[in-house]
């Protein structure tokens, strides 16, 4: 990709800045060729990846180098886009929000600094991937489990900072962060929580601080570069029991949620419970064209045929219980009784105990896998995907309302419907997976229009996304409109106070610094 300069920066000044950065990280870790820019682009971009071009990338190897880079960036006015491992796939990957921003790639900072098997935590640098940590736990024979996202190619810290979710009892990843080390926009260094005291022994154990705790301020944020974090890990359970039900009808998701939520709140179910719709099962059996060879959405009549032919429910609910076998059995009885009020048949039951083989693809056992990337194969060609991801209260009223609304809007745009609900307690995350062939302009145009419609109409109904793609960070931000967008105005005031040059991640999550606020797109992307 040809060079796109940062806004209001001359080519000469840009070259001088790169030379200055070379003085910090060495020539080999300043990456600024056309090929480098290609590698820092969104591989699933809905349309041209040139909408979100990086100008270069820098790869520091230490906290001190990050600090030096940030100070130079202030001097040269070169904006930086920090990424941990750059695998934010479906949300923009490692590409920056603002064209011409330099990617600050923290992938070289990949040390596992501490592992405490007694109190169940580790201290990581941002370049540590889920595979790295998993292998370390295996080699150390540490009795600890991670929580992993569906695609575990990325960074443990990066995923948590971007509010990623997993499917174990530790599935709210941002909540597992305890005690951060952060390079501030002026190059200064902060430790959050108890780490604010030099040498404090409880830094990665006590989740608050003395006075306000700033940890969550640095998640989905452009207020600092996280260079180190404590991450809580689940003590490996002695055993586990998995209950699986096929749920026959679309509207059954209402009672499924009303059944699971009270059990979650009561502590009978600990994990994040994932309930995907039928399309998640059909993909086992081939490519889309094997089931429906027309360009428009698979019609309902064909869906019903497919469910019959392949003996599938519209949804599948899986509840995994963790711990002592007798306790799991007792909990399973409670869960089965609750489901038995709605379904005649018993669930499929699978037990697992320490030492048994575990499925290498089971995220509910905290096992990392990158097989998620295979989904591109369903559509064929250069398959891309985006997720429309609103958060709704975990009750049938809200879940059914959300289901009917997104189903209608997606049908109006003639796109296949693939939804899932992940029940996390008082709320559920509804992922609507939208798949497209990047090289099919009609499909891309349709998906973009659909995405705009989903954001707008879902917001009108009182719900918002928890995370979104680069191209929609501004429109989703705009849906947070209480008191004339008071939250955005506060974010901007904080941003301008801490980062007067607007160096760090301009536009991240729709928060723009004064220096670039004129570049904000405060309307739907088109």
């Amino acid at each position, binding site marked *: 990709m040809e060079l796109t300069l940062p806004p209001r920066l001359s080519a000469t000044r840009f070259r001088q800045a790169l030379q200055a950065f070379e003085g910090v990280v*060495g020539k*080999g*870790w300043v*990456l600024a060729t056309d090929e480098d820019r*290609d*590698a820092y682009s969104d*591989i699933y971009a809905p349309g041209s990846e040139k909408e979100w071009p990086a100008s270069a990338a820098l*790869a520091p190897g230490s906290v001190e180098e990050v600090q030096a880079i940030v100070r130079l960036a202030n001097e040269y006015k070169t904006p930086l886009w920090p990424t941990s491992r*750059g695998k*934010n*796939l*479906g949300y923009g*990957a*490692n590409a920056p929000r603002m064209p011409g921003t330099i990617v600050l790639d923290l*992938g*070289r900072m990949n040390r596992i600094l501490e592992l405490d098997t007694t109190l169940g935590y580790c201290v990581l640098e941002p370049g540590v991937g889920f*595979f790295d940590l*998993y292998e370390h736990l*295996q080699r150390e024979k540490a009795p600890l489990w991670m929580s992993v996202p*569906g*695609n575990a*190619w990325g960074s443990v810290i990066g995923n948590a900072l971007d509010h*990623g*979710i*997993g*499917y174990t009892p530790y599935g709210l990843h941002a909540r597992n962060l305890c005690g951060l080390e952060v390079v501030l926009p002026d190059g200064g260094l902060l430790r959050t929580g108890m780490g604010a005291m030099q040498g404090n022994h409880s830094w990665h154990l006590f989740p608050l601080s003395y006075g306000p705790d700033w940890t969550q301020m640095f998640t989905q944020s452009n207020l600092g570069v996280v260079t180190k974090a404590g991450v809580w890990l689940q003590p490996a359970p002695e055993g586990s029991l*998995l209950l699986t039900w096929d749920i026959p009808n679309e509207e059954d998701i209402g009672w499924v949620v009303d059944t699971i939520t009270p059990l979650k709140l009561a502590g009978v179910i600990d994990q994040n419970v994932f309930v*995907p719709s039928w399309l*998640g099962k059909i*993909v*086992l059996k081939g490519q889309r064209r094997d089931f429906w060879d027309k360009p428009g959405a698979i019609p309902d009549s064909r869906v019903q045929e497919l469910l019959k032919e392949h003996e599938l429910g519209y949804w599948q609910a899986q509840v995994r219980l963790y711990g002592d076998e007798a306790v799991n059995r007792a909990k399973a009885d409670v869960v089965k009784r609750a489901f038995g009020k709605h379904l005649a048949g018993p669930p499929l039951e*699978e037990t*697992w105990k320490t030492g*048994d*083989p575990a*499925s*290498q*693809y*089971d*995220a*509910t*056992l905290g*096992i*990392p*896998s*990158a*097989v*998620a*990337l*295979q*989904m*591109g*194969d369903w559509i064929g060609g250069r*398959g891309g995907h985006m*997720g429309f*991801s609103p958060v709704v209260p975990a009750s049938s009223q809200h879940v059914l309302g959300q289901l009917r609304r997104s189903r209608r809007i997606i049908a109006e745009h003639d796109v296949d419907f693939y939804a*899932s609900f992940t029940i996390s307690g008082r709320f559920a*995350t509804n*992922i609507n*997976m939208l798949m497209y062939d990047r090289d099919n302009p009609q499909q891309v145009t349709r998906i973009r229009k659909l995405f705009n419609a989903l954001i707008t109409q879902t917001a009108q109904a009182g719900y918002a996304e928890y995370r979104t793609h680069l191209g929609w960070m501004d429109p989703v931000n705009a849906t947070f409109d209480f008191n004339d967008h008071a939250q955005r105005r506060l974010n901007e005031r904080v941003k301008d106070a801490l980062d007067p040059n607007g160096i760090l991640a301009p536009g991240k999550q729709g928060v723009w610094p004064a220096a670039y606020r004129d570049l904000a797109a405060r309307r739907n992307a088109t």
Partner: protein
Amino acid sequence: MRRVFFVAAMTMASALAAPPTPPAPSGPPLGPPPYQMRAPLPAGDRLAGGKAGAALISNLCGACHLAGGMGTNLLTKQRVILGEPPESGLLENRQDLTQNYVKIIVRRGRMAMPGLTRVEVTDAELDAIAAYLGKAGP
């Protein structure tokens, strides 16, 4: 190998949220499959040459391209469609790859595979990987 593919294909998961469905456990107790137990990255300056290609491909490519990994699963399917043996889904078993082809695919990506940055795989590391995999010559 075919079975491995079909098991792996049971996912529609993504970074967005979607764990794969687990197949029923079977066989004797095993450690993690190869793609979840990669070789450590060879020590030393990553910008300098002289590292072992086998260790580099295990560490840097293994999460997808060792047995059980998603790249192996997809390539196995493609190879079988082409009438090739399923074992050729594993890159290390390929005899027809040139070094130049390996370098181009790693940097530019292909189908589901994204191009990799020079932080993920340095040029020196890619030279060693290409030398190791490129059994059909330069």
